[in-house]
């Protein structure tokens, strides 16, 4: 479920800037981390870079931050070319996965560090530091040290530290990956709330698709150094453009399909095809569990194997007579009474589906 937040216009003057990464190439020895990566981010937008490890998302972020250099390509922020500008002159705030708070400084000193480097006076630093700490809800802990805080609290301080300098771009490198599941869910809402309030352009790297879909304005799915697709969460989920995206985001069933024009026949029913599908032959339809309907039927096309009750939804895995195993998601009311071993009929609904070449 996406968290919809109305973007509040920030009271600060033009906080968000446009970010453009143009045709970035980066190779490490024999491994190509980025193979021509292009991304444009609107001012004030929060974009999540999502992908499995090794896809290049962290490399792209670090090149944007200036911590690494691309072999080819340009970094343009707010109209200025930053490709050759060193990291400490790029006016960006970065939050790392872990361990980035300076252990010998208090929370307030950590947060005010960037301001101290810029020559801001002591009183002003403290005031601004407390202001950002209040933003993340930790002003009461300003005198503590990093080792006295929980993981979630440390990351909130790291966020405050990055924001204290009012950066033009905010960068988050898997900030939640090292935290417990419950803290992760709470903190990602916090991050989103804060981001909307300060209105900075933000790039957020993660391998957790639930995280990305939950809080980003747009999600860019990456694989092998390239951007597979970038779109708003809902569009990414409902209209994947490539097989990788369809399979990486959400659950997918693979069912044989025959494409004919702009629709395909799957399990006897017709489904419209999405852009990027193969045309005019046999293929593999990537069908979401909720795009399948299920009912008990003695003359059906498969058997129910297991049924998982998830509250308002249930997931039933079935084995079809044709040999495939599919997972069907339906409301628990609809699935009520289905028991393992029952004969069922699985029917695709008429929603758009991506059909790719058969393996």
């Amino acid at each position, binding site marked *: 479920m996406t968290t919809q937040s109305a973007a509040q216009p920030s009271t600060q003057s033009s906080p968000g800037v446009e970010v453009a990464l143009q045709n970035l190439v980066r190779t490490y020895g024999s491994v190509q981390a980025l193979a021509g990566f292009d991304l444009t981010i609107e001012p004030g937008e929060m974009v999540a870079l999502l992908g499995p490890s090794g896809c290049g998302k962290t490399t792209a972020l670090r090149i944007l931050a*200036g911590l690494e250099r691309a072999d080819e390509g340009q970094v343009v922020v707010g109209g200025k070319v930053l490709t050759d500008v060193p990291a*400490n002159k790029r006016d*960006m705030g*970065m939050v790392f996965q872990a*361990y980035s708070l*300076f252990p010998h400084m208090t929370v307030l000193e950590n947060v005010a*560090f*960037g301001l101290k480097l810029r020559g801001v006076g002591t009183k002003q630093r403290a005031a601004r530091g407390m202001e950002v700490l209040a933003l993340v809800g930790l002003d009461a802990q300003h005198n503590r040290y990093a*080792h006295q805080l929980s993981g979630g609290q440390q990351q909130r301080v790291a966020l405050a530290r990055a924001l204290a300098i009012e950066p033009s771009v905010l960068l988050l490198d898997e900030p939640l990956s090292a935290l417990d599941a419950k803290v992760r869910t709470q903190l990602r809402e916090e991050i989103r709330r804060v981001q909307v309030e300060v209105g900075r352009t933000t790039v957020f790297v993660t391998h957790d698709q639930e995280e990305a879909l939950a809080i980003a304005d747009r999600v860019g799915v990456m694989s092998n150094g390239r951007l597979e697709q970038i779109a708003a969460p809902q569009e990414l989920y409902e209209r994947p453009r490539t097989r990788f995206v369809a399979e990486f985001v959400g659950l997918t069933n693979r069912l044989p399909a025959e494409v004919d024009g702009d629709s395909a026949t799957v399990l006897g029913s017709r489904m419209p095809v999405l852009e990027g599908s193969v045309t005019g032959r046999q293929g593999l339809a990537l069908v979401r569990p909720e795009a399948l309907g299920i009912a008990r039927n003695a003359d059906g096309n498969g058997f129910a194997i297991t049924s998982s009750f998830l509250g308002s939804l249930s997931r039933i895995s079935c084995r079809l007579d044709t040999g495939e195993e599919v997972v069907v998601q339906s409301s628990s009311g609809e699935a009520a009474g289905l028991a393992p071993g029952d004969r069922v009929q699985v029917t695709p609904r008429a929603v758009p589906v991506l059909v790719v070449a058969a393996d």
Partner: protein
Amino acid sequence: MPSLGLLPFLGYLTVFLIVPTITVIVGAFQVDGRFSLVNIKTLFGSTAMHALSNSMLLSAATAVIGAVLGALLCYLVVNAPPTSLFRRAVLSISGVLAQFGGVTLAFAFIATLGFSGVLTELLRSTLNVDVFGSGWLFGLPGLILVYTYFQIPLMVIVFLPALEGLKPQWREAALSIGATPRQYWLQVAIPLLRPAFLGATLLLFANSFAAYATAAALVSQGQPITVLLIRAALTSEIVLGRADLAFALALEMIVVVAVVMVAYALLLRRTSRWLR
């Protein structure tokens, strides 16, 4: 009772470590079996005080020189390109050289800078420079040079983990906030490394203060430092001629080393919290 299983170990240590130590402490306050402060008073006499101040000077000098040069070597190792071979080589060699003390080291330097040492003869024949002089190698300046040979490797062994405990995220976080590399070092790295550096320096001090074999092998005349004064007291060569004095001097050693090691332990605690 399971703790009975520890008796052999505790017993052994009591006999061969604790009892000698207690003997020293008690013996320092006795003359001919009766309580007396005479030996303690001698500690404050000119001979003992002179030796003590020389020992302190030697230890402080070699600790500082060893710490600075050792830290420099650590820095070079840490910044090496990620060929761990170099790092492993430095660590292994440091492991050997830190233990390489005593007689062996003394002879190595005699072979180098002694009257007919290799370097002495080299400089004598090529540059007409007499580096042997009046035999400074066998006095305090010589000890400072020779002790440095094992102090630097010891520093590498003790300090390198601390330097490597500097997480790269701190540097990157500082840079991304806008720090120049110099500001990162001055405001983040050095404050974080300071306790480890000071602690290591203290360890080097204690190591130098307690070292005996090297000095014994190099210095055959006179008792410029405390440990050699103890040798003289044990072999009854000195003016005062009292073996009991050895106890008092040994007590003095225990006190100095214990104080330094306690300070070291306290600094270590802070470091391990930060640089785990």
